[in-house]
């Protein structure tokens, strides 16, 4: 029983070490027991960026309709 606790302790420290150095903004498939309540979920991929699978997400296009609407909102 004692050895089991000890082994769990080593695993926990190893896992904690990995958690402390991982970039929280990058999505991970692994389960992290040390995650905090307000740890942000992996943010959606930014427009224009290249996703992990190599698919490029097209950037948002400026549309002509957007300008008058924005002007209206400012006014």
């Amino acid at each position, binding site marked *: *029983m004692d050895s089991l606790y*000890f082994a769990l302790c080593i695993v926990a420290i190893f896992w904690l070490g990995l958690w*402390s150095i991982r970039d929280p903004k990058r999505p991970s498939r692994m389960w992290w027991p040390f*995650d905090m309540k307000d740890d942000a979920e992996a943010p959606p991929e930014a427009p224009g960026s290249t996703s992990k699978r190599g698919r490029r997400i097209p950037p948002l296009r400026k549309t002509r309709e957007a300008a008058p609407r924005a002007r209206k909102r400012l006014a």
Partner: protein
Amino acid sequence: MRDLTFIAAMICGLLPMTAARPFVGVLLWCWVSFMNPHELTWGMSMNLPWAYMIFFTTLFGCVVAREPKRFPLNATTILIMLFIVLISLTSLAALAPPDMVESKWSFVAKSFLAQLLVGALLTERRRIHALIWVMVISLGYFGIRGGVFTLMNGGNYRVLGPPMTMINDNNHLAAALLVCMPLMNYLRLQSRHRIIRIGLIGAMVLTLFSALGSYSRGALIGLAAMSLFLWWNSPHKIVSAAVAVVALAGAISFMPASWTARMSTINSYQKDDSAEGRLNIWHASWKIALARPLTGGGFMAPYRQSIVDEYDPGTTARAVHSIYFEVIGEHGFPTFFVWLGITFAGIVNTWRIIRATRKVPELRWCYDFAKMAQVSIIAYLVAGAFLSLCYWDFYFTLLIGIMATWERVKDALRAAEPARATTLAARRLRLTTTGAAGALPAPPG
């Protein structure tokens, strides 16, 4: 088998990770200092210099890796540096044999220097959270193990601390577990996963049984003080009082008659040899301090019969069993006030954090941590009045963690200040250009 597992984990995983990211070295250093895992392997790794290996790998990592590090200059770090200087000076004038003094000085000075390194690498929220986790894992191991042992044996046998550590003694272990329990609660409050939160509640219950199973009277007083402080700060006083009474009464009623008999001697300490011996050595320490107010007797002075005989004849030399009298007797009044100042700076930092983050949801973790750290400090200050734990690295690491949290809160508030100023300026500009005060909605903040 344990030995091989430990060596393999260190050599193949954790030390290389430290070289790449020195913060892992901070976690390892804390783990090895607080838990002494290599001493529990009963094999070859007991003789390997793990602390040195971790220290030098961390230093190497600090030089090579581009990891953020910032040494903060504030009351806590300045007082720790001053404390190291003062204990070095008092060691020069120590009364005990030089080899004993040097050995203790080296141990304490290294421990406090390591605290400064820890403080320099605690640059973000996740690192502080990881530090609290490593503290809880290190002592939680003994809490859970001791709790299971107490429950399985009906509380008939004493729970002892790990060998070759500062918490070897049953009283020391009990106080350490009390200091650790609020940190478990902080992790419970801040953990995202339900299973972890439930696990932490289980760990807290077992740790409570472990503390009671140590048969430490000082710990019982510390537990009472902690419970009172928690109740005083609770927004729901009736509910919290009911929960505390039920939990404590349930745990105490489980303990056998021998435990109750031992605890009842708190009221009749005049008839108890152990308690009387403590009062005598406190008196001897006080007399040493009065005779040498600037330097005290130096490290180990109250432990040497020849020195005690000189200042308080008739008293038996022994461990001082009080954090306050130990520092006064060993180092005199200036060092004592600096040592106390480190704790005071920690308390002030918790007040500042609580005041600054009370209404800031994004910094709720700081608020929870400061609240629970206050309970840990109370446990240490009360239980420590009957224990020789004045240089306990776990406690000073907690104070460093509080200092780092306050630094993060200051950074967050500073970052929020220009955004707030910009919003106000934009609002003023709109009011002047449109001239219609009521037409625009008020900006947030």
